């Protein structure tokens, strides 16, 4: 089962693309979703459905990943349908319903773009890609390389910390700590969990610093497995996304399309 934000290793066209290209494409498509009007959303949705295969995903999977977020879409819809321009509506008007549908659709389109991006790009590549896109900032002294490494390592340690948290909680429970009772008591228990967790994390960070030094980190800018060059599939994909965006936005603003 695919969850929102999860990466799923497959062999697909999108999986093979450079992370930077996918990040840029997601940004462009988000702009389309936000400014392209009804026709833009329709074009996005059709394009998304047609690209499912190219992303190695199934319709069911994408729907499944969207499911927990549907409630929020519904919330957006009702807010617009019943509270138009900040005032509660006595009777639901067509305009309110339309505005609600539009906003909910926009939101779901953005969610879908996110699912396509994260499902086809490993988190580490996402971070590395973002790092490389931001590399020009290094000219102003921003240590982009180190920051993206830190973010990537933090991602790796989340499951580990969760595991430690579970162990600590189980150990407490085994010694009779129960979470029933007043706020103060529960707060006390939570603090008793967080402090050892933090101490453990600091110790681990120390060990990790030594370990990455031992593995040659920090002597020079590391090379990248993806290579510096974008291939022609990368360029073609980006060109396709950019032209789609251009056509949709121009049509939306030049023609009387909704």
């Amino acid at each position: 089962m695919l969850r929102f934000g999860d990466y799923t290793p497959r062999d697909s066209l999108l999986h093979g693309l450079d992370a930077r290209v996918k990040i840029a494409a997601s940004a462009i498509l988000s702009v389309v979703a936000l400014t392209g009007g009804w026709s833009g959303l329709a074009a996005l949705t059709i394009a998304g459905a047609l690209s499912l295969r190219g992303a190695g995903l199934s319709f069911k999977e994408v729907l499944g990943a969207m499911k927990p977020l549907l409630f929020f879409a519904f919330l957006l819809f009702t807010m617009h349908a019943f509270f138009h321009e900040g005032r509660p509506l006595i009777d639901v008007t067509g305009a309110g319903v339309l505005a609600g549908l539009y906003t909910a659709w926009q939101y779901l389109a953005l969610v879908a773009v996110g699912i396509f991006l994260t499902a086809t790009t490993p988190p580490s590549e996402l971070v590395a890609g973002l790092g490389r896109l931001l590399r020009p900032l290094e000219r102003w002294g921003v240590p982009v390389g180190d920051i993206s490494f830190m973010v990537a390592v933090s991602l790796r340690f989340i499951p580990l910390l969760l595991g430690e948290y579970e162990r600590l909680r189980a150990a407490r429970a085994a010694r009779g700590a129960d979470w029933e009772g007043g706020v103060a008591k529960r707060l006390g228990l939570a603090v008793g969990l967080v402090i050892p967790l933090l101490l453990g994390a600091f110790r681990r960070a120390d060990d990790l610093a030594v370990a990455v030094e031992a593995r040659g980190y920090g002597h020079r800018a590391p090379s990248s497995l993806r290579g510096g060059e974008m291939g022609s599939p990368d360029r073609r994909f980006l060109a396709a996304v950019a032209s789609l965006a251009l056509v949709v936005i121009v049509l939306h603003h030049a023609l009387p399309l909704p």
Partner: protein
Amino acid sequence: MIVLEGVTFSYDGGPPVLKDVDLSVGEGEYLGLAGPNGCGKTTLAMHLNGLLRPRAGTVTVDGLSVADPSSLRKIRALVGMVFQDPDSQIVGMTVEEDVAFGPLNLGLPPREVRRRLEESLEQVGIAHLRRRSPHTLSGGEKRLVAVAGVLAMRPRYIVFDEPAAFLDQAGRALVLGVMNRLHREGITIVHITHDLADLVAADRLVVMEAGTVTLQGPPPEVFGALMEGEGPLAPPPLARLLWGLKRDGFPVRTDVLTVDGARLTIGALLGGR
């Protein structure tokens, strides 16, 4: 060859943890380093590739001094470290990514990184785990990922700090088996442990006590000295049995360290078949 001469070290403001240590690690050797908890084994290990610099004395690796900052990068590539806790050493989100981490830090081109990645995964037999997240692996598998990550740097020496700690029987056999194979393939091994039973096959044993080297030599000799109470550790059970029999006046061999060797020498004593 790694050579330590008169190495003394203390952590900031603390008492000396290493005191005037002389030690050499020969090319192609399987060196066992043993001692009770807290005697300074890990601290010594970190001197072998310049993660720590001695307060007094010198450390050289193939003639390169760890005191020379311009040699450090080379030394780190020559001497790989497998730390006690693989979770504090694995940085990749996937096995593949982690193994590639070192070679990428060396600035190698992608094609060479891929080649080393494949070879290292094969060498420790974890190619099938390549796409897995480290946190889904068993303790033994994690340790092998750490070993593969070090191998991808193509080191001449690998230091293993308590490689069998926290592993079950199967995990232990797996990791020690890989270490033996790497040794046969020509890599120099420094194996640190508080459990002498893991070191019976070592070429040479070094025993530490409170920051100093107190004994060294081939395992049978060191076990003999330990039987005389000359060191801080008890020899492994088999050695205790043979030395005990010998002390009781039975003419058994004490230079055999395997169950089969012991069976033969005790069998001979019992009159054979």
